[in-house]
């Protein structure tokens, strides 16, 4: 409706910023990933060699942590979906006048620092917390079983910490469903389950896709939960990248691992969006 240049002028500052501090660093990361260590050089000194075998080496060496990252992230995402869907549904359709208050209460826990909450879980599930002794008394877990430093604790922590990323998009898309479509389905003799499977779920798919992506992506790259709630046996790829940067000072391997992680996630996301058939997110 106005000058052709207007949108480009509006985009210019933001995109210049993104180019300098997002695209350029990623390109630099790609470059770093093929460097090799200078022989007899100091720690952290590398030369550009285009050694693509870095990727192979890094992956073989850390395939266990890679697999674990994706398995943990997948389980956490599914758990978050199972917990959030009924919650979002109840908020959208059953909360009545309490809708806004309950919505605030869903987000509210996440105003307390992410790290404080994770540490709180560590202490709640720890030996001195109230969960382990009471489970032992009932006899659900044996005397020698612990909850912290296990994959259970890491997955539980991830599920908890990324829950709002699942609940909010789900709520947004379920709330948009016209309740009359559900009534119509009932009038056409569909029972509750059929109505859910054929009407509610398909209509809420954009929320499911957005929610699962927003949970899975940060979960796959996370290392805080594994660090605080886990043990050396639950290390994820994020832990490896972090230690390669800060403890081992092996930048090429760290860069190759980061790049592999990013590529794997982008491929999975693309396939998933294709399959789920929503372009709304982008």
């Amino acid at each position: 409706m106005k000058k052709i240049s207007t949108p480009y002028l509006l985009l210019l500052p933001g995109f210049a910023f993104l180019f300098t501090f997002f695209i350029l660093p990623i390109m630099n990361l790609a470059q770093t990933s093929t460097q090799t260590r200078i022989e007899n050089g100091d720690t952290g000194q590398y030369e550009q060699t285009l050694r693509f075998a870095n990727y192979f080496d890094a992956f073989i060496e850390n395939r266990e942590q890679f697999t674990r990252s994706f398995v943990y992230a997948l389980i956490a995402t599914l758990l978050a979906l199972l917990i959030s869907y009924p919650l979002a549904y109840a908020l959208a359709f059953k909360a009545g006048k309490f809708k806004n208050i309950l919505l605030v209460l869903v987000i509210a826990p996440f105003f307390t620092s992410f790290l404080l909450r994770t540490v709180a879980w560590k202490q709640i599930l720890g030996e001195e917390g109230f969960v382990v002794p009471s489970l032992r008394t009932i006899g659900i877990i044996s005397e020698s079983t612990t909850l912290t430093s296990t994959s259970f604790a890491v997955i539980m922590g991830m599920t908890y910490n990324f829950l709002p990323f699942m609940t909010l998009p789900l709520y947004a898309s379920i709330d948009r469903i016209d309740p009359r479509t559900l009534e119509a389905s009932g009038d056409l003799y569909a029972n509750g389950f059929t109505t859910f499977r054929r009407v509610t779920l398909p209509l809420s798919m954009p929320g499911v896709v957005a929610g699962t992506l927003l949970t899975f992506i940060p979960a796959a790259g996370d290392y805080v939960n594994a660090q605080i709630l886990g043990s050396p046996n639950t290390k994820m790829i994020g832990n490896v990248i972090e230690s390669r940067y800060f403890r081992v000072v092996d930048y090429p391997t760290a860069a190759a691992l980061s790049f592999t992680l990013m590529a794997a996630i982008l491929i999975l996301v693309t396939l998933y969006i294709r399959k789920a058939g929503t372009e709304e997110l982008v």
Partner: protein
Amino acid sequence: MSTKQKDASIPTLPVGALISRWIGRNLIRIYMFFAFTYLFIPVAYTFAFSFNDSGKSNLVWKGFTFDNWTNPCGAPQVCSALGNSIKIGLLATIFSTILGTMIAFAIGRHAFKGRSASNLLIFLPMATPEIVLGASLLSLLLVFQISPGFWPTVIAHVVFCMSFVVVTVKARIASLDPRLEQAAMDLYANEFETFRRVTLPLVAPGIAAAALLAFSLSFDDFIITNFNSGTMTTFPKFVYVSAARGIPAQANVIGSAMFFLALALVIIGQVVSRKRKVS
């Protein structure tokens, strides 16, 4: 006879059936109760342990005290870390909100060549794990021999907050009724006046929500900050570093205070927007 039968049928209903009927009727309420308990357990724990007379390590309950609340800066470094987090959060919010809102208007209000590519570019930082964002910026800093610290952290935060601002503001722009702007134009407002008096006030709640989101994302960020902040400490970094030895109760005080502050802000926002709707 029939009434007698009916009377008899009520008490003979087994207790198990009564319970399962009650559960069936209240399933959603029961579910909500458990879900909210789960959500609030760590918050309640953090709040409770902010009153712990714990000394240095806040792991075991030792007794009730208000000392941590009256002296929130009592633990070394905790307040300077908090100050850094607030400064970084405010700067990142200002920059990402301005840049992101401009992009949201360009994409939401204009049809132009390269629009879908622009959408993709905005989506990419959200689809990139934080550790990759943090690591890539750090590797660029290393190349140019810039030492990590305050400004690199602000820049890194702007990168990942911006996409969330764009998405939030764009959604608000998309929900606007275009007839309102047409009406303004019909009433002889020029483009600039229409924008200032009609469009901007209508989009403002979206921008405010985006700014709040940007601040909370920045304030709570650990992974990207850890890569780009060098020796500077932020509040999440402080908690992470002290987690091994036990976090001082002052950190719980600050976490709880943030919780109540944010809750109050959101509730005030809700009340204000409801009053506006009514009037």
